[in-house]
């Protein structure tokens, strides 16, 4: 176990370093980073001044070292537009994204998993057929379209819920539904496959043969064994929810990190964009690590193999 863990940790550390380097050199290779940060039509004098202030006139390797040292301390510099530490701005928006992602995850798990199990147990039921259609459609549904359809139906036509912003508690409902659909379809598909795999195993037939009703077989045995793939996919889905939030937050004007990213690009506030992408990558690397570790804890056979 410890060998596996150390190897995975080392891989994650390399990824963190690699992503940081990738973002840094992407900026340098594709042009002058200072030009990304000045307003359009700025004078050469202003550009030179900003270059000196931000230290972009020094050797690239020195800059890279300082940048890495900053990233390690979660110091992403200051916002160019607001002249406030980037981390403070991110901290003020983060709770909104977490609330949105948490609500979406709860919806996706709460509806997707039972739906998937039902589709496996009652394969011929009409609800299962609709469920399969939903699984297929859910993967093809652009969130920026489903979001607008939700606004159209529940805010414009019915007038039940607010269409955008975050002024009231009910504002989270529509964006959360919109963000959850893809994950919900994924959970339903994974839970269905996992349940089908378990149902085919001999112990299910044995339990049925000794007279245990189907409902109890499923709740007592199948669900426990089928939970492994669902748990491991959940960690990856959290990463998907966080990045999916970029578009959903833009559709619903939800003031989280996603909307901040798009606003910062429009305002040419590059340090914020860079910090959000780096943090997103770190969270994603960490969740992948967590999924692997969780997987090996739940299923000891994986540990023996070393890596995946």
């Amino acid at each position: 176990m410890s060998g596996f863990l150390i190897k995975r940790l080392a891989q994650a550390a390399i990824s963190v370093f690699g992503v940081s380097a990738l973002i840094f050199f992407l900026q340098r290779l594709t042009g002058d980073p200072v030009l990304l940060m000045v307003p359009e039509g700025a004078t050469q004098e202003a550009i030179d001044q900003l270059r000196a202030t931000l230290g972009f006139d020094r050797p690239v390797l020195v800059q890279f070292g300082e940048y890495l040292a900053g990233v390690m301390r979660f110091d992403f510099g200051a916002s160019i537009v607001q002249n406030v530490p980037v981390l403070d701005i991110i901290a003020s928006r983060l709770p909104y994204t977490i609330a949105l992602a948490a609500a979406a995850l709860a919806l996706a798990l709460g509806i997707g998993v039972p739906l998937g199990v039902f589709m496996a147990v009652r394969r011929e039921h009409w609800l299962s057929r609709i469920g399969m259609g939903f699984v297929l459609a859910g993967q093809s549904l652009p969130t920026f379209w489903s979001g607008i359809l939700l606004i159209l139906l529940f805010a414009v036509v019915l007038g039940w819920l607010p269409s955008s912003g975050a002024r009231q508690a009910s504002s989270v409902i529509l964006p959360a539904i919109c963000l959850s659909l893809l994950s919900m379809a994924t959970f339903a598909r994974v839970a269905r496959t996992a349940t089908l795999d378990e149902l085919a195993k001999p112990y299910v037939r044995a339990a049925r043969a000794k007279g245990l009703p189907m409902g109890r077989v499923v709740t007592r045995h199948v669900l426990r064994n089928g939970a492994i793939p669902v748990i491991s996919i959940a960690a990856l889905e959290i990463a998907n929810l966080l990045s999916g939030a970029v578009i959903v937050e833009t559709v619903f004007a939800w003031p989280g990190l996603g909307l901040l990213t798009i606003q910062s690009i429009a305002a040419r506030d590059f340090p914020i964009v860079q910090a959000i992408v780096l943090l997103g990558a770190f969270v994603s690397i960490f969740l992948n690590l967590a999924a692997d570790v969780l997987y090996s804890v739940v299923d000891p056979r994986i540990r023996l193999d070393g890596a995946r």
Partner: protein
Amino acid sequence: MASATSLARRIAPPRLWPFLAIAAILVVGAVLAPLIAPYDPNAQNLLGRLRAPGTEVRGVVYWLGSDELGRDLLSRLIHGARVSLTVAALSVVASGIVGTVLGMIAAWYRGIVGAIIMRLVDIVLSVPAILLAIITVAIMGPGLVNVVVVLAFTRWPRYARVAYGQTLGLASMPYVRLSRFMGGSTLWVLGRHVLPNIVGPIMVVATLEFGLMVLFEAGLSFLGLGVQPPTPSWGSILATGRNYVTTAWWIAVFPGLFLFLLVLTVNVLGDHVRDVVEGRR
């Protein structure tokens, strides 16, 4: 003849016909857009702004309605199919070629070269794709060509992983080793013996990626980072439609519907390609 029919049914079973029809309509529509579209997609008409589907204004019939500048939505959507399919096709081809070549090289030379390439694959894949695309566009600037470059840069690792695994398995096969032994150059062996045998799995990745690329292009254009106006893109039309959702629902609903149908079709056909290649059914 019987075998020909059964082969045809295996390649295109009847349940896929509706999807093949949608795919054909979209592709033909995109290719022949200037001939099929009833009007110029960029022709503005201030008298015909925000008209509902089916409205006629001075001899111009807006079958799917008009937008805020009085442009015909149907014509813009037909031309938008062009942008969608072109960007998706180009980025799939570009990322497919780069990824396949790098994956084959990594598996062939292994050692330090292979380690570097495959680490890079892990690193790029560890950044959520949409975030990586957004920051790259933010650095490079928007536009059709840049979107293709960004998508290729973001997605090549998918192909590299598959090509790497497949090539690794083939490298130890007797016929590959014999070809090397008989003096075949690396380029010859990889191109002549390895590539034809990994094309199937690569095609599977490509079809599944195609739908994703359509969604990515539309997503970036929706965020204002993709194809720039006035070029009609389904994503940017949708973004406009969002602002008029209370007064002109059709501007947002129809491009999304087209997009959904295209991606659904590609995904259904992609699943089928995977089943055929992997020998199920």
